[in-house]
């Protein structure tokens, strides 16, 4: 029988702050808080954010303000003035900027975000602390969290300065004897995920490619789904292979048509180029306050935002520009 060293040999480690993995704590949370019963979780965006997002939470959303992101939920979160969030900035674009400008986020784990004057100033002023990862390293941290593990080994990230400013460690692999990097599991407090279809229990369908909607849902203590369309559970049962996220990981379901506005939701509508340019310019020129005033604070909710600042004509035009439905509309 091979002997295993009494202590794992740590060859190098990052200095970045990170949430300590706690797989048993997470299991107990899941035991005590995730409803096993088929009960309706339908609620308004106000109720979902108010009940499930708390100050100081670690927040993870999937996709971006440009593609199938939970944009209406993020705007509601800013409207309700959540504070001191730690945000998983994997494969993001401008949502990090909106959350910092809105006074909601104070820490970001970076995979990728749009650069520009706004984020540069937030960093210089110390309004946000950034810890360095990559997109795939972040989704592997979520994978570890979704598997109930404390960490995962990764074959990327080694030797970078990102490693130095992260929670990663380089250890000697006890099996091969070679150096291997490990990254800490991520179990966010709350996840926001926008999907094409869900039933009232939270069985959710994502069509097209995605970032880590399944891992994010399974790894997160509280999961809020917004859906373009609420479908009957019989429709879910008719084609179970299409269920991306099972009901028992979900805490709230919000019906949010055009919930990804100004971005695209594949199969449902194309993006609004003018709306996209508006948020990009606000981010690049560090002028996000007027943007937030218009799209978040001056309206009571998502529906009022669509009525006042987008309008039916544009929404219909966005639907018309959907060029393909293959794979997106079963």
């Amino acid at each position, binding site marked *: 029988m091979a002997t295993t060293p009494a202590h794992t040999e740590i060859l190098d480690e990052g200095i970045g702050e990170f949430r300590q993995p706690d797989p048993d704590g997470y299991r107990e949370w899941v035991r005590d808080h995730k409803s096993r019963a088929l009960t309706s979780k339908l609620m308004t965006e106000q109720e979902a954010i108010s009940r499930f997002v708390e100050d100081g939470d670690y927040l993870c959303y999937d996709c971006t303000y440009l593609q199938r992101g939970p944009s209406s939920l993020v705007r509601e979160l800013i409207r309700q003035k959540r504070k001191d969030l730690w945000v998983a900035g994997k494969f993001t674009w401008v949502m990090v900027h909106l959350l910092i400008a809105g006074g909601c986020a104070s820490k970001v784990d970076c*995979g990728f975000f749009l650069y520009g004057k706004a984020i540069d100033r937030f960093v210089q002023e110390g309004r946000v602390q*950034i810890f360095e990862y990559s997109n*795939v390293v972040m989704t592997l941290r979520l994978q570890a969290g979704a598997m109930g593990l404390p960490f995962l080994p990764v*074959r990327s990230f080694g030797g*970078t*300065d990102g490693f130095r400013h992260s929670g990663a460690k380089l250890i000697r692999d006890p099996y091969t004897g*070679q150096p291997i990097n490990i990254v800490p599991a991520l179990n966010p407090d709350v996840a926001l995920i926008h999907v094409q279809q869900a039933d009232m229990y939270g069985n959710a369908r994502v069509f097209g490619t995605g970032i*880590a909607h399944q891992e994010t849902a399974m790894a997160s203590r509280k999961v809020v789904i917004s859906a373009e369309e609420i479908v009957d559970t019989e429709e879910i049962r008719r084609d179970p292979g299409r269920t991306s996220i099972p009901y028992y990981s979900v805490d709230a379901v919000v019906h949010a048509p055009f919930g990804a506005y100004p971005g695209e939701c*594949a199969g449902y509508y194309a993006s609004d180029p003018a709306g996209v340019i508006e948020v990009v310019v606000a981010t690049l020129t560090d002028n996000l306050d007027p943007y937030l005033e218009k799209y978040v604070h001056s309206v009571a909710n998502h529906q009022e935002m669509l009525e006042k600042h987008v309008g039916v004509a544009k929404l219909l035009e966005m639907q018309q520009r959907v060029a*393909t439905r293959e794979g997106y509309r079963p």
Partner: protein
Amino acid sequence: MTRATAFNEREMQTITVARMIEDGKTYWVAGAGSPLYAILMGKKLYAPNAQYMTEDGVIAPEPMLPFDPIMSMVSARAGYRALGWATMNAAGNHAQIGLMDYGILNALQIDQYGNINSTAIGTYGEKMRRFGGPGGADSIASLCWRTIVMTDQEKRKFVGRVDFISSPGFLDGTPGAREKAGLPRGTGPWRLVTPWAMYDYNEERRLRLIAVAPWVTVDEVLAECECKPAVADKVETLEVPTDEELDMLRSQLDVAGQMSGIERSGWIIWDGERYVRSEG
């Protein structure tokens, strides 16, 4: 195929990479900009059986053209007619088991050992300009067998040591540095292509100039490198674009002129005897 008489040097850069695409191989490509243009042009004109993936897990797509300037990963246009739709961890795992032959990336700053910075210019944590982070580039540069990097030929972008290693090249250049850092054996930087030149890496894992565009000399290229690369014994001359390549790039890919717009500097004109560069 006729040699073009007027083109932008950035068009030349994309076309140079498009011609390097190897048929029957797999590419993990940055999801926007010139790396994506290069693989699409390579597939259309020279290597129909080259396949590519982006980090959202789209496998071997045939995206809708002409290219929508605000098209991004996860969009229906980008994922059109793919052979598979997966997610980011699938993309990462496919590369991690060795399925991706090549990666193609853009870099903000690069150093003599091919390390890439996309995080911050200046002293990290102190006086710096913050950029967007590696995104998928760290995985591409770590896990693909060979990495092709595209960047501008500017003095301040070719340095001895990048301000921040976002994505790994040969790290400090010592033998086995990547393996000692836990990266897979046999991977690493392969070519660097700028609008003026092409580089490979020598036995010391340092950048080496191997070809220059016909409108510049070796000395002019070296003047635009803060840290001087090695120079091959014989430096080749890069072929200029053909009209067919430019037509594809302009009418199908860079339709908004983001690369070739008239206000972009670095136009190359055939004056009847030779190619000359004019600013703007």
